[in-house]
């Protein structure tokens, strides 16, 4: 029996209080801090469904989503299919995307568990020290993406470094693209919004440093490809790059060549 409404119900702390206690909750995007705090205070295990949690064939998602669809959201469905979850909370506000809104409906239709939507309009920036730190870019991205599961900012705050390269965009599904960047890479775009815990801050998302060579990255089939391409056109030394499920050798070669030919790496 299919559920009647296509739009999953809104999620709030009040709503969560009415439901039975959860042990494992999947989140998509960045639900508001008060929701995350509610889960943290009850020691609920949060699974970031945008991340690569399950290494199995993406074809399992084909009955639920078109193959030509954002690889991160296909990964959300893949994770949800394989994890034992009590509920899923999907941020569908301006801090995420329309595609996630539709995926929320798919999840609600597919799984016999509560699927709820949030609208994250948080405006209290907590800072983005890791985006500006001297640190391996992959490790940096892990710290930032792990931060989505906590209502509090990271306990440590590394010193900022002088940037020699920039990475603008969302955390990629496949982190292997990050291995070519120098440790002195600063992170911009939605990832910086993410660390700041203000995912809907469009001005911060559009910010970049025109003085350093910057890769403007988006997942193929993501609406953010338009913004990435626009900003890359405005930046004097930019590479626009979109990558689907896995990073192809040509995409890796483009990043490596761009960073070397612009002097960001030797």
């Amino acid at each position, binding site marked *: 029996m299919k559920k009647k409404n296509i739009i999953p119900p809104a999620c709030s702390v009040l709503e969560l209080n009415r439901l039975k206690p959860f042990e494992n909750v999947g989140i998509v995007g960045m639900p508001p801090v008060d929701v995350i705090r509610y889960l943290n205070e009850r020691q609920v295990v949060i699974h970031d469904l945008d991340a690569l949690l399950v290494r199995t064939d993406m074809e399992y998602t084909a009955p639920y989503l078109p193959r030509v669809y954002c690889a991160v959201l296909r990964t959300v469905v893949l994770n949800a299919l394989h994890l034992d979850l009590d509920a899923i909370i999907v941020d569908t506000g301006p801090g995420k995307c329309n595609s996630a809104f539709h995926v929320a409906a798919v999840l609600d239709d597919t799984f016999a568990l509560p699927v709820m939507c949030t609208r994250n309009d948080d405006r209290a920036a907590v800072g983005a020290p890791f985006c500006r730190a001297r640190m391996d870019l992959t490790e940096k991205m892990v710290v930032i993406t792990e931060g989505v599961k906590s209502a509090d900012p990271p306990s440590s705050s590394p010193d900022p470094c002088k940037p020699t390269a920039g990475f603008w965009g969302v955390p990629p599904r496949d982190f292997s693209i990050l291995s070519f960047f120098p440790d002195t890479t600063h992170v911009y775009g939605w990832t910086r919004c993410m660390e700041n815990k203000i995912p809907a801050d469009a001005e911060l998302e559009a910010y970049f440093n025109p003085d350093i060579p910057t890769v403007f990255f988006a997942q193929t089939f993501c609406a953010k490809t338009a913004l990435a391409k626009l900003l890359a056109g405005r930046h004097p030394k930019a590479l626009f790059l979109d990558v689907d499920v896995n990073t192809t050798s*040509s995409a890796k070669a483009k990043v490596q*060549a*761009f960073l070397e030919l*612009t002097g960001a790496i030797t």
Partner: protein
Amino acid sequence: MILGDFGTSYCKFLDLSEAVASPTIMATKDLPSDIHVSFSTGHNGKRFADAYVNELIALARGGEALIKEPDYVLLDCGSRDIKYVQYENGSLKDMGWNAECGASMGFTIELLERYYELDYNELAVPEQTFSVTCGVLGMSHIFDAIINGVSGSEAVAKFVKGIAINAFRFVNSPSKIYLSGGLCDNSLFVNSLPCKVVRLGRHVLLRGLKESAERFAAG
């Protein structure tokens, strides 16, 4: 020191220890399995060399050495893919590498020439073109045209022009293209590009590899 550009269909070598170093070429299918060089580039290059330089870097360094203009577009059309670098005021402005949608264009052109026993330097550029974004998928246009009474040579010419137009659009439709790769020797392809074309030949990547090797040696 031997440099090698290990392409999908052909491999090019340059022995810098020779008094007058000039490139040599061999079909990739004839490549000895135990061959080893100091520096390599190309799809097959990593397993045959002490050090590997990726093809876009080799192309860009080759362009920097060969082209004496601050602003230019350098396009390399290989067997398997097309790639380009655009320079503005002597610095990298843009680049692209189309290994998926531009798949196997050069290789398909060569196969068609043999199968239909054509000479691309004898074929006129056709008025019309096929919309071709992929060598393999584009073949169906040829077969459909032949079914409808078009000669094999005309159908193939439309296909080649379609590939040229696709490559031209891929590099953002410039007024002039510096062309690298084996297709420099294909007059039908070159004349199908709707802009001024400067043919640099098939050894641009090898030249770029030489530049990279010299930079490496200089520390």
